[in-house]
């Protein structure tokens, strides 16, 4: 950004416009690369994986299949890791999966109060809010207040079950199948399954809302 000139009145001159974190990470990457400890192309490959290959569309496929295929839904309840792997989704932060199903009585919500545990294999990288203190602190004590901030008002009778991911189990919420979706293909159903509906901060979209 050399085209940007500071006024003369500034007390000191920056020789670049890196933020602190840019500079910090650049130094770290340079040292590690000079030592042969990291391969910058491996970093590119990791980033590309989570930008283009592993994301919430994976989880949406799982949910759409569970809605369409009772045998798969049953397998997902009993052994989520294997059922999800059968669709090709496995690996880092998806080694030990559990699927929890919303019902007319109970709404499920997933949090990691201690760090940022999240089912990468089916949802990809977590959003900033999932990793940040406001959500992590309040999901376990005031989930209704949390859900209201996402625009989701549940009926007063609906039970709420919060799953705090304190171990290596990673939780996928299977939202309820929206009404008016009889006869929908798995592809069409998957379009209704948002990332937030698989964390529990939203419901699946209605066909009207998805249009």
């Amino acid at each position, binding site marked *: 950004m050399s085209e940007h000139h500071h006024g003369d009145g500034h007390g000191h001159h920056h020789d670049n416009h890196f*933020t602190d*974190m*840019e500079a910090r*990470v650049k*130094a*770290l*990457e340079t*040292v*590690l690369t000079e*030592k042969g*400890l*990291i*391969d910058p192309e*491996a*970093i*590119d*490959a*990791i*980033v590309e*994986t*989570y930008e283009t290959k592993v994301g919430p569309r994976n989880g949406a496929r799982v949910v759409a299949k569970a809605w369409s295929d009772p045998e798969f839904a049953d397998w997902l309840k009993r052994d989520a890791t294997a059922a999800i792997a059968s669709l090709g989704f*496995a*690996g*880092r932060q998806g*080694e*030990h999966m559990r699927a929890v199903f919303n019902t007319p009585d109970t709404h499920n919500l997933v949090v990691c*109060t*201690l*760090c940022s545990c999240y089912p990468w294999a089916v949802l*990809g*990288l977590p*959003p*900033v*809010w999932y*990793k940040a*203190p*406001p959500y992590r*602190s*309040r*999901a*376990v004590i005031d*989930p*209704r207040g*949390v859900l209201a*901030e996402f625009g989701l008002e549940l009926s007063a*009778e*609906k*039970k*709420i*079950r*919060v*799953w*705090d*991911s*304190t*171990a*290596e*189990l990673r939780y996928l919420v299977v939202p309820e199948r929206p009404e008016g979706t009889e006869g929908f293909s798995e592809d069409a159903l998957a379009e209704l399954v948002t990332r*937030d509906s698989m964390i529990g*901060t939203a419901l699946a979209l209605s066909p009207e809302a998805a249009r």
Partner: protein
Amino acid sequence: MNGPHDLGGQHGLGPIAPEKDEPYFHAEWEKRALGITLSCGAFGAWTLDESRHARESLPPPIYLSASYYEIWVRALETLLKRHGFITQAELDTGHMLEKGREPKRVLKAEMVAGVLATGGPCDRPVDRPPRFAVGQTVRTKNFNPKTHTRLPRYARAKVGVVEAVQGSFVFPDDNAHGKGENPQWLYTVVFDAGEIWGEGADPTLTVSIDAWESYLERV
């Protein structure tokens, strides 16, 4: 440890502010932070539990004001220095000054797909039966170790019900400190909100944690 990471139940940390159509990364450095962190994890020099402990050991004012990728970067610097791969002087100058420790493995681009697809399973067999059964009422321990634990403060000394026996897993409280994996049975224990939060708790709310066997006592 009773660190800044143990956030369940705290008030006053502000609105959640979900971002519409949030991008995967908010800056280029976050991409590098992700890739560097995963690459260095592949050295095999420390465990996931040790890296979690390095993150939660950040000073509370830093932890609570940093983005999660910043938390990762700061903890990674600690781990790399602790295990002899880099020095603070190198971080300060931004260049290699001395040859450090050699890792068991350097993650090359062609290895990435395989490593990410395999992940790091941490279920391990144990040679004893589970001490607790599904449906059993249990109480979590009251302890306040200065070391790593995965029993959150809000769920200590609370009575709940074993809902599932999830298998046996590496015990993070030991594994974070180089004491070995020492696997234990892991249970999903569910609590009524009233047990955890007392007066004014949402009567429709239950909260579960995944608890290692040594976190639990018979009632």
